């Protein structure tokens, strides 16, 4: 059994498998299938200041190895969230990462203040992939200045004991440029990645399949994009921890993210097809680390970045998977 403890900034988690924002509500429904305190943490659906209806239906379209959603951040608002959802998570003894979303910087700041000092809040994930009301609907995470303004403001307003992670969109020309801007603004780490913007047209109605016209693509279809994003940001900013997500549905999928540089992973869309997926992924990841001879998860984080000689050297003798060691020996 590898030591699965991991660090996300100042936060220590007993294991690296979390839920993903927007894919597990606030954990209560999954609590019917397993004890949510067994997870590294529960990442809650992005919460905003006010109750929000979300978009009209249809909100979902299945796509090859994925799905599009256009929920539109339906939620009860921060006060109800704290009173009901956070209280429930605290009762379960679950560690909680609260995802926050806003239409302008002040809204993010207001949310961070509401969560200040709350004992049930382990970390804040800042969803900056929603449209910025002040810049004519442009998504914050597509603009380094807007991203940096939000992350800086949240970091200043939030409880210093709560790490602030920036959740970034892959729909940008240069992800590292955005990540650097967030790092300079004080981000304690990154959540990579949010959904990719996509669209499906219904060939029967000959109209967009979603009520919101476009939607976010998630599921295994986006996994290679997500692994690439984790790899690039880890390479550019090796000192900052990454929470990786995007199409993870098995322990080996999770291991790809870890090897690319993620210190923990979120299991998202897989939950829709398999409510037990987070626990299954945790068990499978544990076994995969053992098989490869890793004594701890920390040893595996970013392992794929090592140069080939270091990775496969028989002299190191420890980590290569038996098959890889055999291949190297021949």
């Amino acid at each position: 059994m590898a030591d699965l403890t991991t660090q996300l900034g100042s936060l220590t988690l007993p294991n690296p498998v979390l839920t993903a924002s927007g894919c597990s509500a606030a954990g209560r429904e999954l609590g019917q299938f397993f004890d949510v305190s067994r997870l590294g943490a529960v990442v809650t659906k992005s919460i905003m200041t006010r109750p929000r209806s979300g978009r009209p239906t249809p909100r979902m379209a299945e796509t090859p190895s994925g799905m599009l959603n256009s929920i539109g951040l339906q939620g009860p608002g921060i006060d109800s969230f704290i009173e009901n959802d956070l209280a429930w998570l605290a009762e379960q003894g679950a560690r909680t990462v609260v995802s926050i979303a806003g239409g302008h910087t002040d809204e993010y700041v207001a949310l961070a203040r509401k969560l200040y000092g709350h004992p049930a809040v382990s970390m804040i994930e800042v969803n900056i992939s929603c449209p910025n009301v002040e810049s004519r609907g442009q998504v914050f995470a597509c603009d380094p200045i807007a991203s940096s303004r939000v992350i800086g403001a949240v970091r200043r307003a939030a409880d210093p004991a709560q790490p602030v992670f920036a959740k970034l969109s892959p729909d940008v020309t240069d992800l590292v440029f955005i990540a650097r801007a967030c790092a300079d603004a004080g981000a304690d780490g990154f959540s990579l990645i949010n959904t990719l913007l996509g669209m499906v047209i219904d060939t029967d109605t000959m109209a967009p399949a979603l009520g919101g016209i476009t939607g976010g693509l998630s599921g295994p279809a986006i996994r290679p994009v997500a692994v690439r994003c984790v790899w690039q940001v880890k390479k550019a900013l090796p000192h900052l921890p990454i929470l990786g997500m995007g199409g993870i549905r098995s322990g080996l999928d999770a291991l790809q993210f870890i090897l690319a540089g993620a210190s923990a992973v979120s299991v998202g869309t897989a939950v829709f097809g398999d409510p037990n997926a987070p626990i299954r992924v945790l068990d499978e990841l544990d076994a995969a680390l053992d098989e490869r001879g890793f004594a701890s998860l920390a040893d595996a984080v970013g392992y794929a970045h090592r140069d080939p000689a270091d990775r496969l050297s028989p002299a190191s003798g420890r980590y290569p998977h038996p098959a890889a060691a055999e291949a190297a020996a021949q």
Partner: protein
Amino acid sequence: MSPVQETAEILSVQRAGDYYHFTVVAPGIAEHAKPGHFVAVGVGGENTAMILRRAFALYGATPSGQFAGTVQFVVAEHGAGTKWIVQRQAGESLDIVGPLGTPFPVPSGRSPAVLVGGGYGTAPLIPLAQQLLDAGSPVEILLGAATASRLFGELVAKRMVGAVTVLTDDGSAGQQGLVTDALPAAIERIKAEVVYACGPMGMLRAVGDIAREHAIHAQVAVEESMACGIGVCMTCVLPVRGDDGRTRFLRSCVDGPVFDAARIRWSDVGKLPPDLVGADAMGGH
């Protein structure tokens, strides 16, 4: 009652007109299943590109018996996922989550009821009819479909209640017409106090309208497109009026699939009415 995930061996698959009637071994689901509950079935096998489950109303549940607990459901083939399911054979297994949703509310005492099924929407009404009959309630069953091969449950319904009323759009079985054409007379015939229905949205809305004209309740089971079936994805919402008179987007999978028809704002389905709770926060997004 919590839903469970089970690997369920298929005991039998039977053709029923255009539909497929599955009986699977799922003791954990069968134990707590009630009429109106549904199950979510994984499709495509391991590593499938079809990542979402397909939802089916329970047609029956036998908590114990010769083969441990079994549940039954009815599948209509209308896409790649349901096509995969109907190609399964006895002896193979399905990954099933259930029982899901909120079952039909049933009055504690005797209460005459009309049950209206459209297509394979009849499936959950059959165990409901049995429950009502067991409570001593008179039951009328109306079945409708586009055409004869898309009717479901006529024989078993007849066995339960004697006579059923059948209507098809093309007149290929029973009378020609919409199943709701026969509803007012059925309500009056047995002085029904409640109508139960499952079928297409247009039919459910018409059932609700007719029930209201007769000043009785209609409990309808909707079929909304859903990704998870357990309440986490928020895709299957409908605009539903609450006790406080305000309308919210409620999840059909956990707050439904059975709703009081009078609470659903049918003309606002697929829209964002401005008075919906939280609609005012949608500006700019």
